[in-house]
């Protein structure tokens, strides 16, 4: 009871400079860890948000599958290279037109390249692509097909790991991601029959791995795009292999359903500890007025 008479003892203070009437290992339960704070910037992610986020990964995964499918159809001669080239280029052109219009409307202040500059870039690419496709075609010709496929798998995995999904993280590296994808496409190009086929594949790779992320970023990784890509991939894949399309569906369910559900369920276990011992952050370290 508080009415009971106690020895007059000054309350413990969290200071070092005064000798206090307490042993050194005394812990005042009222003051101890008073400044501890948990999950300061915690923002609960809803299931819908988690699924939307996961669909960004899926979208990139679908584009990779699309590229592999195009290669598969070309190497087995199920499709004319011309159709692939014109089909993809037509799509790219539509995307380009949309991008130009959208870009001029949304951000008029940002300086953009002139149309002439863009056309010059395309012409340069076509000319150099045609010139170097025989070289690129035979570059990895002597390597065995198994090695090529393993290499392609690893490189595309790297591409997916380092791809910029719109989250700022130390992992993200656009250059590693793009280089890995281009390396994979050069590997695959050597399995095709002619230099022209190789040129087509490299053009498609450029459109898929270089141009499409720019457009998709502008579209904010729209879900409709994900659905279109899914239908496209699944439609072609089911004609190639039943097992593969089953695995494909499994990945889709895993990434876009199971993982978000687990994430949402386990986020309440998040337990970040903050306190006076944390290093202070200098906000204006990079823009010191010299």
């Amino acid at each position, binding site marked *: 009871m508080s009415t009971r008479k106690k020895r007059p003892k000054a309350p413990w203070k969290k200071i070092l400079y005064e000798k206090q009437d307490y042993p*050194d*290992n005394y812990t005042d339960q009222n003051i101890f860890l008073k400044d501890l704070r948990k999950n300061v910037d915690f923002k609960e992610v809803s299931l819908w948000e988690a699924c939307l986020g996961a669909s960004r990964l899926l979208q990139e995964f679908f584009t990779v599958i699309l590229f592999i499918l195009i290669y598969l159809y070309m190497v087995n001669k199920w499709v004319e290279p011309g159709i692939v080239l014109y089909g993809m280029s037509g799509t790219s052109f539509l995307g380009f037109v949309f991008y130009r219009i959208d870009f001029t409307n949304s951000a008029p202040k940002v300086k953009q390249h002139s149309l002439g500059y863009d056309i010059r870039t395309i012409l340069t690419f076509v000319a150099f692509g045609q010139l170097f496709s025989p070289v690129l075609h035979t570059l990895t010709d002597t390597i065995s097909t198994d090695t090529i496929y393993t290499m392609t798998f690893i490189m595309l995995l790297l591409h997916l790991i380092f791809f910029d999904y719109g989250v700022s993280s130390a992992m993200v590296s656009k250059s590693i991601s793009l280089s890995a994808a281009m390396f994979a496409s050069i590997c695959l190009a050597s399995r095709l029959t002619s230099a022209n086929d190789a040129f087509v594949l490299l053009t498609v790779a450029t459109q898929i791995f270089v141009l499409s992320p720019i457009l998709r970023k502008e579209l904010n990784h729209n879900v409709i795009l994900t659905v279109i890509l899914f239908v496209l991939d699944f439609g072609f894949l089911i004609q190639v292999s039943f097992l593969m399309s089953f695995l494909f569906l499994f990945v889709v369910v895993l990434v876009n359903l199971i993982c978000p559900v687990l994430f949402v369920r386990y986020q309440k276990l998040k337990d970040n500890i903050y306190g006076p*011992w944390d*290093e202070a952050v200098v906000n204006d370290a990079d823009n010191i007025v010299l």
Partner: protein
Amino acid sequence: MIESSKCHTICMVSDFFFPNMGGVEEHIFNLSQCLLIKGHKVIVMTHSYEDRIGIRYMTNGLKVYYLPIKVFYNQCVLPTMICNIALIRYILLREEIEIIHGHSAFSALAHEAMLLGNLLGIKTVFTDHSLFGFADASALITNKLLQISLASCNHCICVSHTGKENTVLRGRVDCKRVSVIPNAVDTFSFTPDPTQRDTTQITIVVVSRLVYRKGVDLTAQIIGDICEKYKEVQFLIAGDGPKRWLLEEIREKRGLQDRVVLLGSLEHSQVLNVLVKGHIFLNTSLTEAYCMAIVEGASCGLKVVSTKVGGIPEVLPEDLIILTEPTVPALLDGLDKAIQDLKNGQIVCPYACNKRVEKYYNWQDVSRRTETVYKIVSKEKTINFRQMLYNHLSSGVWPYLLVISLAFLILQFYEFWVPRKNIDIAKNYKIKRKNVQT
């Protein structure tokens, strides 16, 4: 056993010791000196520094073992836990050590010796000198390692109450087993000398390593702004480090060559000569467990302006320090206040300041409180191998039990190969004990 039963034989272990310079090194040396004078036997164990290998004696016969172990990273040895068993065991037995006192969470050698000490039935004490966050991956790993290491440690010492909270959270130690014993400052070698001060100008002194953690980015910004606002202010900056270019650049850009003096790295004994010239001591650390520098500044009678981070708010009473948030505008406000106080003559007498700091912090007091810890620890029951394994189960890293078991087996092997009875007992250094009451 030497003389009375209350004297202990203590082995200080750390990767950081003279000729390296810093807070931990200073702490070990001063604490050892005080304990030696009180009649305890103290040895220091550290790794070799260039040609400093073997045994050296320092002031008052402080015996230092520089073990021939290669440095692995950041002045630390590679934490193999088992490779140096033979050597460390030999030294511990040879010196009849009763208490192992490890210093600094970064020091792998300290953790290694503490593990071995536990297995040999020697009591262990650990002093934590630094603070850690919990947010990033490297912190998570080091915190887990600390938890493993402290699982069977007898007692921990922290340098501030914030440090204690941090250690209890990181190492999951019982808070009764953690004592708070602050660092101290040799106030005799940090005596003020107002005659050295410039009467026409206000001198702001900064003494710190020039690294990110010490807030050099803040200092750089402040130098520019304060020099613009007050024409009579000059800066004296002692210390060196990777961020020195930032200060040089701001000095260059603003044309402050005559008002901002960069002295570079100084010997600890020379710091006094810089401090006595100053009116205001500025500390912009981003994290700090105790901060020796502000106490040294206050001891020299300077008005201290410091960021309110880590254990700093506990260190000095309100009238000796101006605490601010770790941002440029807050620090500028703090300096404004300090400069206004100086101009209005509202200052604490430097000599009174020195006397007060001496009352707050001195090594005699630190060593007395550390002795209390030693006393508690030496009364505790020695844990056997089984209990030790059991203690380590709580850390959750069960593979570590294998490491302990392996270390135990290696020790048993050496017990057979180099039996205890064949190890010579080292003779003790006799020092003149004029200060010790018999």
